[in-house]
């Protein structure tokens, strides 16, 4: 589903050129459960931005479901994000003025889905994350764990190819983190492709495959075979 070949990303900062990614090749198949780990400055955030089609590479090709996204313009990238990617952020990034239900339904607005249909699918999505009874609350009336569940529901509502989570447990305590990761495990069990960007080994251990970044390159790519058997 994801095929990246020779991806590089360079930034110019002042008169210095920074090579954030320096030749990355990676394939991710449907229903994989991948942890993207690495120290800060390793290039994992840059890779996540590229995977999430928030940005385009300086060179290389990125086939997402057979489509090369490296050459798309802003509007086409927005369409791809809307249909293929479900984002979960570290600090939730819910829209504070909207109800939980409207927050979850928001991605469908950009697809032109009629409101009735949107709200129905948002409700279903909230049921999937176990929050079917908090529809009319505002995000600030919820706990951190509940907010992140809302964010997951929002990411799922458009039935994306990839659930892309950036440090999803970074703002949560250990117990709530475990709940969120259990939710990811369950979604993976239902066939969802999940990519988690993290620097915490505990979180990475939930995944079936670990990709480790360092200095803009992939330095380790292994499957967590022991955990596969444990979960199976």
């Amino acid at each position: 589903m994801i095929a990246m070949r020779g991806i590089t990303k360079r930034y110019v900062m002042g008169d210095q050129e920074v090579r954030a990614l320096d030749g990355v090749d990676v394939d991710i198949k449907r229903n994989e459960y991948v942890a993207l780990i690495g120290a800060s400055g390793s290039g994992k955030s840059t890779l996540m931005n590229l995977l999430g089609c928030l940005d385009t590479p300086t060179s290389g090709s990125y086939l997402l479901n057979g489509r090369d996204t490296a050459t798309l313009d802003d509007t086409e990238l927005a369409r791809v994000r809307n249909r293929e990617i479900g984002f979960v952020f570290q600090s939730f990034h819910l829209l504070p003025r909207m109800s939980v239900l409207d927050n979850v339904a928001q991605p469908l607005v950009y697809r032109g889905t009629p409101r009735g249909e949107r709200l129905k699918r948002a409700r279903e999505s909230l049921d999937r994350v176990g929050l079917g009874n908090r529809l009319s609350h505002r995000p600030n009336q919820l706990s951190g764990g509940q907010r992140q569940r809302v964010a997951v529901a929002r990411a799922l509502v458009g039935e994306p190819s990839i659930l892309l989570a950036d440090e999803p447990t970074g703002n949560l305590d250990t117990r709530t983190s475990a709940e969120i990761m259990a939710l990811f495990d369950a979604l993976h069990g239902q066939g969802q492709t999940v990519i988690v960007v993290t620097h915490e080994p505990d979180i990475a251990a939930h995944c079936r495959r670990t990709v480790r970044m360092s200095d803009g390159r992939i330095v380790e790519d292994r499957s967590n075979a022991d955990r596969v058997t444990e979960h199976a």
Partner: protein
Amino acid sequence: MQALLEAFRAALVSLLANRLRSVLTTLGIVIGTASVIAVVSLVQGFSESIKQQLAGLGGSTLTLEAVNTNENILFGKINRITFEDLETLRYRVPGVAAVAPVMIVQTPNISYRDRTVTSEVRASTADYAPVYGRFPVKGRFIASADDQGRRRVAVIGNELVEELNLPDDPLGEYIRIGSEWFRIIGVMEKQGDLLGFSLDNYVVIPFDVGRAINGNQLRPFMQVSFTIDDVDQVDAVRDRAKRAIQTARAGTADDDTFRIQAADSVVKQFEEITRTTTAVVGGVVGISLLVGGIGIMNIMLVSVTERTREIGVLKALGATRRDILVQFLLEAALLALLGGLIGIAIGWGAGALIASLIPGFPPAAVPIWVILGAAGFSALVGVVFGIMPASKAAGLDPIEALRYE
């Protein structure tokens, strides 16, 4: 359409979230629109009432009057309408029907028993009634015989009955105008007020009687109104009258010393004044709306900065540049339109209040085109001044925006 509706909803939600700020932001637009509506409503009401007053004078009544520039008056060379002009008009211009000269008699004191009031005394002929379209409600008007016989008779305006404390049926009573006694033979129909001045405070006496009282001046101040046989011939008759008077005055007067006007040209003049005033006020208020628009732009820019992260999130969720642009543009337009609507309501109220506080001022009138124009223009101001903030929002890089603290 669906997308526009969604953007509209989003804009509304965001405005309602900051109610106080939204209202304060629109204040410039509110004040601008309110002042234009108030002023225009007063001017329009004024012009409506003048039109109604003059409505009785149709296009078939023409007026011959002298033209005097300030220069003329300074040098004491004052142009007047002469008795010769009157004769010319009456007998030598085909197509002229009735001719009514009006001379103001300079004896303003009128008494009845122990009451003395000041009024306007007009000396005119029997043709006054048909030419001006004003008729007596009691008794009769001046007849030609009154003129020829130099009879001391008077037709009085409605208000004088009360002012002079005359009996309910004043016909046959004697009033004193200056030092002469006049018998009342008629009371004119009521005309009402114009700008707080009564139009019913006057006396009409026979023309030649007035001439005698004025001391048989050769060239008194005089204005002549006349009607024509065929309304369609108005321009032809006017030209004919002009030429006839010029010919009769040959060698003694320039052709710019008098003019002949249709009565409805006064209405047209008022309409012109109304239009000019409205345009000037509109221009001044346009400037205040621009200031209001800059206020909106300012707040929208602040709002875009504040909501940078939110914009980043929306972009991550799949909002295109256009989605963001439309949402912020609509927000600015709604803000300005809201201000416009509040301003229209306040201006309407203020106009009505001012009109009712000034005695005799006609009621304010707000034409629908002013309302639509004001609302449309405020929305346009919002869109124009929303373009910069909205394109700033739309152009944000999602990665930068998401990282924004």
